[in-house]
């Protein structure tokens, strides 16, 4: 059997969760005898590569220069390369299975192309967020008010983008769904994401949930005993408007000084400098007194390989995102490192972290509620130990690959 794993980026150049998941699936398959001929095709935007061309990266790994030409209908920038270079590549490689991770940056035409060129090939598409459903970068957050969006509809979407009519949104949905019809099955890393796609129109029986895999780690979980209070909190991830760092900082300000004195918060994250000026200003205003006070440590960015070591220094991982999320990698990483998680109680976060079992929920976008959760976490004897004891070892890369293969068995 030969599988082709296609991703919208190569981890050599981009370290998003989706491409890492895709690449790990490819590595596991290739290590297995039966699938050793499997190949990896990643979309690239390298200026050195001719547009539309497919180029060897290293044995078994290829780069395809492609991009989005139309984010509204999710059309490829170079559709001739879909029926040209890609079609030729498919005909040459003739995989039995295609695992397609994501459609953004690749263009939805790729689904139809794969099945038209290779009708007998099984096409499994992994959904990584809501781009097909939501024209606002797939966030399902209202365009101007930034309110959470609970469902798409032609009229609601047109309200978010008044320059587009409901009819335009019908055309968008029709075009995307018509291409989605070519997939044999969809994989969603979370039940929440799956449900959103079902509501949008993918038949329920066509989507299964398979969580993203994590590296197997022998050191991940040591039993915790006693009732010693655990008061070190950590944030890991991008510092963007949607990750909710400002909610965490506001929560810290709301904690009574005598309690705050016992608490340490570490921020491990990059990209603050590329955010808008007002957001940078807000973070600066919030963090400055906390840093001076000694409560807050602004650690900054990290390499993926440093994560385990950095996480080992904190007791709790806080995920305060202000949007739904799908299945944030950081939650799986926290669990892999045996850390209970405090997260906003919505979407993929609420699904992955069980409130009062292996973590705590707080009301999304509510700093006061987060403050209360953090005070409870820092002050309730035995709580941390109880929650930690319930943390489940995340799915390994191997297990994840097995689940994928089970779909085509």
């Amino acid at each position: 059997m030969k599988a082709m794993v296609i991703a919208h980026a190569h981890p050599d150049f981009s370290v998003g969760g989706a491409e890492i998941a895709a690449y790990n699936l490819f590595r596991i398959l290739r290590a297995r005898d039966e699938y050793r001929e499997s190949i990896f095709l990643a979309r690239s935007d390298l200026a050195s590569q001719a547009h539309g061309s497919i180029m060897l990266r290293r044995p078994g790994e290829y780069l395809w220069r492609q991009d989005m030409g139309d984010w509204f209908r999710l059309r490829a920038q170079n559709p001739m390369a879909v029926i040209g270079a890609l079609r030729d590549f498919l005909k040459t490689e003739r995989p039995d299975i295609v695992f397609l991770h994501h459609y953004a940056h690749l263009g939805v035409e790729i689904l139809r192309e794969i099945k038209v060129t290779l009708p007998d090939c099984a096409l499994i598409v992994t959904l990584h967020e809501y781009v097909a459903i939501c024209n606002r970068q797939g966030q399902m957050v209202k365009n101007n008010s930034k309110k959470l969006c609970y469902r798409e509809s032609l009229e609601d979407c047109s309200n978010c983008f008044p320059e587009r009519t409901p009819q335009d949104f019908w055309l968008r949905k029709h075009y995307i769904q018509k291409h989605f019809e070519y997939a044999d099955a969809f994989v969603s890393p979370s039940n929440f994401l799956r449900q959103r796609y079902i509501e949008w129109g993918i038949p329920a029986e066509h989507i299964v949930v398979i969580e993203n895999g994590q590296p197997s780690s022998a050191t991940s979980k040591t039993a915790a005993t006693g009732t010693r209070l655990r008061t070190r909190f950590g944030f890991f991830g991008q510092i963007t408007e949607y990750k909710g760092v400002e909610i965490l900082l506001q929560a810290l300000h709301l904690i009574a000084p005598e309690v705050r004195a016992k608490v340490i918060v570490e921020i491990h994250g990059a990209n603050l400098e590329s955010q808008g000026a007002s957001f940078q200003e807000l973070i600066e205003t919030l963090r400055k007194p906390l840093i001076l006070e000694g409560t807050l440590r602004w650690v900054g960015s990290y390499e993926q390989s440093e994560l385990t070591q950095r996480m080992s220094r904190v007791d709790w991982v806080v995920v305060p995102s202000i949007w739904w999320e799908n299945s944030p990698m950081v939650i799986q990483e926290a669990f892999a490192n045996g850390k209970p998680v405090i997260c906003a109680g919505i979407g993929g976060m609420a699904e992955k972290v069980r409130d009062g079992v292996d973590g705590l929920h707080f009301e999304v976008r509510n700093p006061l509620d987060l403050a209360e959760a953090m005070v409870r976490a820092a002050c309730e004897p035995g709580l941390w130990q109880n929650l930690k004891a319930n943390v489940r070892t995340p799915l390994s890369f191997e297990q994840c690959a097995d689940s994928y293969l089970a779909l085509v068995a």
Partner: protein
Amino acid sequence: MSTVFVEPVRRSSPVVRRTRNGVAAGVSIDRVVADGEFLAISGWVIGGQDLTFTVAGSDGVSMFPSLTFFPRDDVATGYGIPDHRVKGFLATWRSRPRGDMQVRLDVRAGEPLGIDLSTPEQSRPAELAQFLAENLSRARFLFEGLLHNPAAISLLVNHLDEQPALNRARGFLETAKGIEGIGGLVVGWTVGEPDVNFRLVDDRGAVIALSGAARWTRRDIVDAMSRDFGDYTFNAAFLQRWSGLLNMGGRIHLIALTDEAAYALSQTKWSAAALDPVSFARWSFEIPTPRETFAERLANHDGPIIDALIERKTSRRRKSPPTIQEYGRQPAQPKCAVVVPLYGRHDFMLNQLLAFSDDPDFVSGVELIYVIDDHQLVSPLAADAPMFEASFGVPFRTVWGGENRGFSGATNLGVAHSSAPFVLLLNSDVIPVAPGWLERMRSILAAHPEIGILGARLHHPNGAVQHDGMGFHWDPTLQAYLNKHPGSGLPGSPASAKFVRRQAVTGACALMRRQVYESVGGLDEKFLIGDFEDSDLCLKVREKGLEIACLPLPVTLIHLERQSLSGIGTPTFRDYVVRYNAWRHQMRWGAAIAKLGAPDKQRADSK
């Protein structure tokens, strides 16, 4: 009887008969003017009863003048007789004999008294001017007496006073726009007492009364004029069609006629109106006559001009063959032609072709024709079309006629360049969501020769019915039948494989036999922008004794028609276009539709 020979164009010596008691009778010709057809004689009589002018031309025909009398106190004083015994006269002829002629003036005054005139010669301009100046207080008489003498009218108008005395009338010409050979529109305002008549007069002396003008009330005129004119300021603004000849740059005058006099209130020059009918309508529909009388205004004023402009445009269509591009292998013996005009955007093709690619009929057996009806789409489509064909595998052709023709013109062009025995008219924003519908429609039509047009139930994106046949409804505001979509927006009756008879169906998706399409001349290209041509087509087919039917498909064809914004807020241009087309449709089909009866009656008559 004594007669006096008078030298042409000279002031004559009076002929006076005296008795012992003084002056008994007299007659005098003060002035004889002639200008082309125009002939006028002024003078006075003393003691005369009847004035008889005998005009003898070489053909012997005598022509009677229009006559008016007026006091001549100066003559009475000069002869020392009472005022009432003298009357001035002014005689005008609408036309006079060509060539040599003789005029004899006889006065019955006890004994006959008379004057003979030989052929009057063409008057010099100064003499004409002098004559008109002397008779300005009788300008209304001159004006009306000379209505059929354009040269004389024109001359008169140039001498009229500009301001009427006594505040009896005011007026102004805002603009006059026209097209040589077609006519124009004059826009302005008048205020005056009800017995003041207003006329438009051009340089050539052609006259149009403003009694039939389309009028509306201008707030600024009411504010400025009501102190002097009170309620007469309402409906001051007017729009008047000029149907005669006109020459660009020539002048047009606004004339007010009071009991006696005539006044030139305002003048303007003809300027060129847009030749393009839509551009012309964009200008003329801005002229804000009341909506409730729009149909009447169209009939009397701008409607015929727009008709003529549309006629002019369609008759000037380029005759060169269109540019046809083929993409993919075209079917050798197509069963059906599908003709889709493209205007404004072509991204609908992505969705249509993607949907067609699922339908075996479209992959082979259908002659798919996209008619480019927008010069801005030519290049983008040429760039995308090869990719569309390669991606979707649906063969198609593009036809570009070199100019925008509107829905009708584009469809007719596409049909003319297809060959299949059946023709489907399809809008680009109708997107199928299931295959097989075209063949189903075609087989029904093939089996029912009594059906002339088979439409289809179309749905809104939300699954509600968008079109399920059309019915004609009388609109009292527009005074015309409109075609309505009964049941639009609602879930609709259960889908059925049996067709239902309808009064009409939409042109967004209409299947016909080619022979029927051609026998009625296809779609009428003379509606403005595009509207009503589908019901017009249905009525033409009905006239041939064929029926109109609609197939109540399940949700298969989504029609993304944007909701019309008419009926709310300020009337838009689009709204007036509908009114124009409704008026044109009504002129042609009002009687035929009235005979059809209520659409509900038809609806019950299903098969």
